[in-house]
Structure formats: C-alpha cells, structure tokens
C-alpha cells in the first residue's frame, strides 16, 4: 500500500473508499506505534480533542472563569447574562439573549437546539458536528441521561437534569461547577479548564490534571 501500484489490490485512488481496509490500516499503525512506545492512545486523544475544540473564540470559558472567581460577577451573570457577558466585551451576532445556567451538586443543565442548530458562536466558536445531528437533538430531550452517558458523563441519581431548548432569540451558557483543587489558580488558568462540552452541558470542567495532560 505504500508504493502506488505495488500490490494487486491497490490501484491508488480507486480503493480509497473501502472502509474496512483503511480502518484496519489505521488500527494497525496505532497499535504498532503504541507498542513501540512511539506514541500513546492518550496523547492522540488529546490532540484530536484540541483540534476539535480550537474552532473559534472560547470567550465563554472566560465568562465561566470569571463567574468562578468573582462572586459579584457571578450574581450579575445570573441576573442578566446578556449584560454580564457584554461587560467582557463579547457582544454581537447570535449572543443577544444569553441565559447562564449554573450547575450544582443537585442540578445539571444541558442545552440543545431541537429545531435547527442555533449556537452561540461568539461565545463557543463553531458548533461540533454531533450538536447538529438529528439523533442527538431528539435523544437529548427524551433521554438526557443516556446521552450524557454517551459523552462519558454519569451523574448521580440525585442530580436533576434540566434540558433547555435554545432558539434564535434565546441562547444558553452552562456554567459548570468549579473543579476541586483549583483554589490557587488565576482566571486565565481556570479558563483553560472550561471546555465547550462543559458549557453545553455534555461534560464537566476539566480537572487541573486533565488540562495539564493537554498542554
């Protein structure tokens, strides 16, 4: 497969869409490279996540970090999300009416756009592919816990899950809980713990250890 036309089953671009073969190839490469200590599954995961996350301004993360560190700001954000976000200079298209949803030990918020794929670009960058998928949009409303589980987020039974349906007029921003062990961290450091998934509500903020693995 390396040298074009060196194998009878390889005709360059004619075989490109044969998924089982290409999948087998990629698995083979990954398993061999990991065995030889050239890479690790984790570091590949981290890079893929970084690429998928680096799709636009993560202003939302700074809003969350400020809410974690500044109680007065948190209060303003709770009362009037739009104005509190505008305070940081983030305004404009698609963030006109933003309501901040605060996660706690007893309540977890997740938002979705069931009608289309409204997304607060200026706060969260470009929407992830799954956000626009019809199955996700339907299932998060009917079976939020199992959707969250698919994202690797298992919440205790006593935590109530609230699903919010966003629209062109009303946007949401989930403020995840501040992770433990972050007491001494600056706002800027804290913002790096806030993922897009956490602000949609399909994930939690990263722990410092998790974020450290990503740098």
């Amino acid at each position, binding site marked *: 497969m*390396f040298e074009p036309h060196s194998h009878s089953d390889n005709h360059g671009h004619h075989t490109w869409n044969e998924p089982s073969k290409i*999948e087998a190839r*990629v698995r083979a*490469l*990954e398993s061999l490279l990991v065995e030889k200590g050239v890479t690790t599954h984790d570091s590949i995961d981290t*890079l*893929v996540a970084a690429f*998928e996350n680096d799709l636009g301004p993560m202003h939302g993360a700074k809003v969350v970090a400020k809410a974690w560190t500044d109680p007065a700001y948190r209060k303003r954000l709770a009362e009037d999300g739009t104005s509190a976000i505008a305070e940081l200079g983030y305004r404009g298209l698609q963030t006109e009416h933003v309501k901040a949803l605060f996660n706690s030990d007893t309540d977890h918020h997740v938002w979705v756009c069931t009608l289309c794929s409204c997304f607060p670009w200026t706060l969260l960058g470009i929407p992830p592919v799954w956000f626009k998928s019809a199955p996700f949009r339907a299932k998060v409303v009917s079976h939020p816990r199992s959707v969250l589980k698919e994202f690797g987020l298992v919440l205790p039974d006593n935590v109530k899950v609230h699903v919010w349906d966003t629209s062109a007029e009303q946007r949401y921003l989930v403020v995840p809980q501040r992770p433990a062990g972050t007491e001494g961290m600056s706002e800027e450091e804290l913002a790096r713990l806030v993922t897009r998934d956490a602000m949609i509500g399909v994930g939690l903020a990263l722990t410092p250890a998790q974020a450290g693995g*990503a740098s």
Partner: protein
Amino acid sequence: MTTCPTTTTAIPEMDGALAYPRSNGEPVFAAPWQSRAFGMVVDLHKSGRFPWDEFKERLIQEIRAGRPTDVPTDASEYYYQWVQAFSRLLVETGLLRESEIAAREQEFQNGVRQEVY
C-alpha cells in the same frame, strides 16, 4: 487576552489543496479512523519524529497521484491519502517495517485482533 490553549499551536497550518476538510468552516472527521490518523501524525511530529514538511511532501504526492485535477473536498478521500502518506513516512524513516504493518493490518481485517486499546 487572546491566549490560546497551548496544544493548538502545535497543529500545523495547512492550506490550499492541503487544507483539512471543512464543512461550513468546520473541520470534519467523518469517521474515527480519520481522527486517529490525524492525531498520530501530529503527535509524532510534535514529539520530534519527523519535520512537518516530511509528511507534507508525501501528502502532496499522494494527493497528486490520486486525483490530479481535483482539490479533495471529501474527507474520506483526503484522509485516505493522509494515511497513505503517513504509512510511507513511517516505513521510509524506519519507524515501522512494511511487513509488520501488513501483518498487523491483516490481523485487524480478519478479526484476529479487534481492539486497538
């Protein structure tokens, strides 16, 4: 106040015919194998196994060999070429042998091996 996550700076720019597949400005991985292939190349480059251009040159060759008149717009085709370029690079730099890749690939294809992890 425009700090970016440190990881992202390591992901090299690709433009023109080499641009990552995007849909409406959004990078597209149509299947997990594509993101794994992407991650492996960037990871090995980051850890100093090869200069980015070594990979890039081979990707250009693959794209030219595959569809000389088309800019690849389909993510599967692009990442197919990506995997071909990467495979060649691994063999040519001595990181893997062609025979062991072929053998391992066969094991995944016939189900002898199923999990990468």
